[in-house]
């Protein structure tokens, strides 16, 4: 087991079950429901036959009972493919304490990978900054999990600032079949169309979860003295006494978070704020209980 997932955490997460909200299309049968009708032992419902339907699907027994043509629907339990997308841009490597946002996001994604692997789902990993940096194909099994965790533990060095729009667009190409897409990022790409790809991911049948990873200091600007503030991705420095602008800064950050949440939810995805000082299991519990 990699150091990314602490054994203690791994134990705590052992009982958690991630249930995909939507049925996924998987190659492996599992406990997830398949949206595909047909060859399945689990009856779902009858529906009146309409011209164009496959006649082979007509339930003749139902016809005998009701003298009406009806088609029988079944549910299939399938193996889910989870795609974990990790923002490894420079801004993610910052933290006001020992834990950077990247550390926190890595932990969260590792936990999710562990959960998914335990329930037999395939997990893939994508790291990105302005573009896709690393990609592990979807596999299942402990060996793959171990390989994935090692990759998470040593992400590639970022080469550019965050470019969410371009990265997520590329992510769609690599996400494959309908499944679960988990994006862990600080979303510090303030362009208006930065989160537009989320809607396209959803349109491809994926369940999208956005983990918005932020540091407490980024949320509250707790500094008590003037600083010469510098950005991490080429922004102009600024000298500010935080005491004078704290209230307005918080308003601005809150507005940013709310804007992200609204855009993700509007696209059909799920949004979860993941503050670095919140224990990862709490964040995951919120996420899974919500599901």
């Amino acid at each position, binding site marked *: 087991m990699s150091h990314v997932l602490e054994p203690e955490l791994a134990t705590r997460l052992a009982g958690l079950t991630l249930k995909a909200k939507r049925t996924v299309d998987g190659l492996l049968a599992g406990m997830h429901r398949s949206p595909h009708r047909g060859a399945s032992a689990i009856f779902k419902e009858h529906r009146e036959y309409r011209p164009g339907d496959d006649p082979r699907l007509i339930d003749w027994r139902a016809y005998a009972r009701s003298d009406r043509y009806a088609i029988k629907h079944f549910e299939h339990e399938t193996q889910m493919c989870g795609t974990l997308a990790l923002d490894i841009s420079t801004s993610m490597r910052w933290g006001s304490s020992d834990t950077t946002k990247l550390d926190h996001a890595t932990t969260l994604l590792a936990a999710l990978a562990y959960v998914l692997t335990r329930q037999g789902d395939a997990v893939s990993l994508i790291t990105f900054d302005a573009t896709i940096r690393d990609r592990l194909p979807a596999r299942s099994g402990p060996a793959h999990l171990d390989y994935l965790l090692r990759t998470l533990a040593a992400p590639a060095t970022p080469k550019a600032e965050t470019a969410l729009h371009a990265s997520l667009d590329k992510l769609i190409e690599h996400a494959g079949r309908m499944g679960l897409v988990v994006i862990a990022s600080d979303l510090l790409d303030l362009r208006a169309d930065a989160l537009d790809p989320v809607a396209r991911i959803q349109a491809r049948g994926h369940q999208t979860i956005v983990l918005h990873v932020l540091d407490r200091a980024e949320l509250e*600007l707790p500094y008590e003295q003037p600083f*010469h503030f510098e*950005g991490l*991705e080429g*922004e102009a*420095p600024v000298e500010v006494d935080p005491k*004078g602008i704290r209230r307005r800064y918080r308003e*601005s950050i809150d507005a940013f978070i709310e804007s992200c949440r609204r855009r993700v939810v509007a696209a059909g995805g799920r949004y979860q704020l993941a503050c670095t000082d919140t224990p990862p299991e709490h964040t995951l519990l919120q996420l899974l209980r919500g599901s």
Partner: protein
Amino acid sequence: MGFGLPWVLVGLIATAAPVLAHLLRRQKLPRQTLPTIAFLHQVHAIRAARLRLVDMLLLVLRVLLVIVLVLVAARPYRVVQSSVTDRQHALAIVFDDSLSMSAIYEGSTLIERAASLAQRQVRRLPQGSEVSVVLAGKPPRVWVRRSTEIDMAQDALGEIEERSIRANALCDAIRRAAELLLEGDLKERRLVVFSDFTPGTHAAECEWPTRGISIGLEQVSTPNPDNRWIRSVEVTGSRDSAKGFQLDAKVSGTSTGRPQSIRLRQKGQETQTGPVDWTGEEGTAVLTLPVGAADAVVEMQLDPDDVLPADNVKGVLLGSDTIHVLLVDGDPHPDPRKRETAFISHALEVAPQAGRSFAVETLDAQDLSESAIVRSDVVVLANATLDTKWLPLLQRFVSGGGSLWVTAGDKINPRTYGSVLRDLLPGRYTATRTDDGPLSLRSEDLPELAQVTVRGRTPIDETSLDAVVRVRFSDGSPAMVEHRYRSGRVAMLATTIDDAGTDLPYQPAFVPFVLQTLAWLAGRTEHSVEPFQAVSLPGSTPTQRIQVITPSGRTVDLLEADRIAFRETGEIGAYRVLVNGVHGPRFAFVVNAPSGESDLVPAELPDVATDLDDSGVGSFRGLEESLTPWLLTLAIALLFVEVWLRQVRRR
């Protein structure tokens, strides 16, 4: 502005501290990375410009605060002039232009120097101030009356005559100046006196204003004055004596050690010179004047080699104290002893023994002339009934200052007197003569008249409101009545002036009675006056021209009038008067240097509250007013502003 501890101002270097702190603070700001810096930019962009301004204001404020605190530590003060001079106020200048101020010091008179100082004072007046100038030479004159035109006042001060022979009227001038100050509306009032404050000013005796007026004294004097003057001239002898006149002159002042002379001038010509013998600070000189050469007035002059030449001249009257009496005899007689005027003439002859000097001229009534009347001080109408043609002349004579004494007798016509001279006389004769029982006379001034016995009299009724009964009969009726008529005086006697009906001429009281009456009647004449003092002279008439010859030889024609107040007495010396071109000795007079003006040694300044430096030439006494309270207030205000700016910066 000044500082009690000027070396503390070195602390102003500390003003660099806030500047350095400001710069260092900018450089030493700790660095902090922040991924969400974009939001800082969003929030801070609006505020940055304001912060820069606030920071700059804070910097300026702190520099100012340091400056103010250093200044406070240096104990700053400002020099303020006297409480009045730096504010709008009313200034009254009393300018002494008396004779002593004509003393010359370093080429200019004290008047010139004082005028320069006074101009400097006026020049310093704040806008809107009011200035008055009163000249303190006698008589005091308002030279500038409450003017706000400073330039005009300065010009007026420059126009004061640089030489003067006036007496001193400082006290009157101060009183007048105080009145002018109190007339104005300005609450701040200042009286400044420019004078040499010699003993002649009598400054200590003046009534100095004590409330609402600050007083400044500027003494302009001559150090170690070298001055000599003719203090007095005693005239002995008379025109009747064979030796003529002897003039004993006494000179005061400082002896130069050089031979000095005194000169005698008559009618503008120097006729004699005599040496001055000095004993200490007193000198004497004696000159003798033959009778034939004697004029009514002469001048004596010392060598003009001192700082005040004007007082080196003195006019001397030769017998001008003599009262000129014209006796008009209405009952002439070939025997002089039986004339109506015989007794009064005899009484006047013995007058010198009583210290009186009379020049008597006797004329019969029919020989009366205008010239004779004009030359006289007193005309005595002794039992004379005049032709009516003389009555207007007499009226003009009395109006012009002459005097008339009417004595009764059997020749007078009461009706004529009562009708023509009704206004002139203090009473009227009610009958020509009445023979009553023996009466005596009563007089408070001369009780000896009680021994007089009167058997016949010409009764008098008082008609004038101001008539004064000097002598009464024992029955209470008026015996002699007097009153003033315009410039002259008139007396009426109810008895004769000879022995007809009375034994008055034989009584011891007769001579004193006559002399007192004539002295009272002639008492108006002033023959020795101070400069610019008016002298009463008869005016010209259509037939008689009166002229005055001044000491400098200038001839002044007097206008036609009953009497002239001659005021052109601005020269020291002898003034002669011509009547139709003939010398009229009784009108001659002299103008002499005012007493007390020749002593140029400054006296002690009067003990009055002054706001000026006594010895300085227009220098003001400075008062140090601390500026610390003001600066501390400013520092506190700056601190409040700093706190406020810091609050603004945090918002």
